[in-house]
């Protein structure tokens, strides 16, 4: 096989992914970048983005990890319910985020299936709160974690777990000492994807949580709003978001995923 068979499409793929970002960097108002980024409103939006995305990632790990483990145990199930279950987990990935936001409103909004009960019984309303931002982010980003962990589980050799069990290890010990180390690359890659997807989340957030500075206006929302009046400032904000994502990806990838580091 000639090297061109791989390299040419690979270069095209790289160009498709990278060139739009290059254009962004070229168009960036480097002179005023400092002043834009130092604005209190920008710092506030970035802080909100980082904390909500971190919270969503932790929640996704605590809930999505076990879900992936449970999905891994459905391999003995008949094909139809097993595939249906996996498809359901994947739906938020293919759903337009705005539709996801509407779905969340219909469930957790003041008039929603569960939201109306929360309002009536406890006086709790979720939309327009920071909690709503986190819920929207979990909804769109947790599937990344579940799929990554489930993929790692599928690829791992289950005989190690069987061996550990025959040697008398408890289920908890097996999970902690055998299963988790086996799936660690998938788990950490999934958590990273989950975090960066949550960081960039726009549609579900703006629909379900609204947009208010300091409470629900994350950096992507602030960026889109800036685009209406000051495209240059919007590009500066986009660069900030891109830089944060890159730093997170590069620094954590080598540290947390030794198997994938070069």
């Amino acid at each position: 096989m000639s090297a061109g068979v791989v390299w040419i499409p690979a270069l095209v793929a790289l160009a498709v992914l990278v060139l739009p970002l290059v254009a962004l960097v070229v168009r960036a108002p480097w002179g005023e970048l400092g002043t834009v980024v130092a604005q209190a409103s920008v710092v506030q939006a970035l802080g909100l983005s980082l904390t909500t995305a971190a919270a969503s990632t932790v929640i996704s790990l605590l809930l999505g990890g076990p879900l992936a483990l449970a999905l891994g145990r459905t391999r003995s199930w008949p094909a139809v319910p097993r595939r249906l279950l996996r498809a359901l987990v994947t739906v938020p990935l293919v759903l337009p985020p705005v539709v996801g936001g509407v779905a969340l409103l219909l469930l957790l909004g003041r008039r929603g299936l569960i939201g109306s009960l929360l309002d009536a019984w406890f006086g709790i309303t979720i939309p327009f709160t920071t909690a709503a931002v986190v819920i929207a982010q979990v909804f769109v980003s947790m599937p990344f974690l579940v799929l990554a962990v489930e993929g790692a589980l599928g690829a791992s050799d289950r005989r190690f777990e069987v061996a550990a069990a025959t040697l008398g290890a408890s289920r908890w010990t097996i999970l902690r000492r055998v299963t988790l180390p086996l799936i660690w690359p998938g788990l950490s890659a999934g958590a990273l994807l989950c975090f960066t997807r949550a960081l960039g989340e726009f549609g579900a957030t703006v629909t379900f949580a609204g947009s208010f500075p300091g409470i629900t206006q994350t950096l992507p929302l602030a960026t889109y709003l800036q685009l209406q009046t000051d495209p240059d400032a919007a590009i500066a904000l986009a660069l900030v978001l891109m830089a944060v994502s890159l730093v997170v990806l590069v620094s954590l990838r080598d540290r947390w995923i030794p198997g994938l580091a070069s």
Partner: protein
Amino acid sequence: MSARRPRYWALVAGLAAAALALAGCAAGSSGSGSGIDSASPSTEPKLSGTVTIFAAASLTEVFGEAKTIFEKQHPGVEVVLNFGGSSALAEQILSGAPADVFAAASPATMTTVADGGAAAGAPTTFATNTLEIAVPKDNPGKVTKLADFADASRTIAICAPEVPCGAAAVKVFQSAGITAAPDTLEQDVKGVLTKVSLGEADAGLVYRTDVLTAGAAVKGIPFDEAADAVNDYPIAVLKDAPSPDAAKAFVDWVLSDAGQKLLAKAGFGAA
């Protein structure tokens, strides 16, 4: 977009069939009745091709109807509509999007396009829009007047001041001397409408036309201060229009009596 294609072609086919039928009728009764459909293809230089209209999202319904009527009058012309936020559309036009006509929801966005040298000739104001209070149909917050927007215990949705509907909201609150207590500053007027129609917000400020398109789920409450923030809608043929003749014909139709009547029916004010 892609989901619309089949319907779009069905519409074109249907219109073509309708045009043939009309042509047959006209041939049968030639000589008399020239008053009907005065803009018939035979009297004007025959237009053909595709004319692409970039229009503000608030024009979605009314320009959809305009397309149907215009294509019936000019059987050779296909009207392609692209709706979006005025600012985003302006950015697309300045980046070289192949559009023939730009219909904006604010003079400021049209100015951006004109200053960028992308408009052919001066823009014309073709419609106006005024703000109305929108409440869910059962009005859970018992909102009756603009002053109710100052009440922090109510859930209030308005547009962000950066977008036209938000700038208009700021203006009416100023002239009414009210400090609003919003819970969300939405990116566009449809965002406000969604929150109100789903009952998540007790009240929002939207345009009169939005209340009409929202149907039964939303009730509109007019208020006096809205007169201080009437929004002008400018329209212009673009300099690099691929079909300048059809573009001009479309703009002329929007400005004609028939076009203005259609806009009035949708809740727009006269220019």
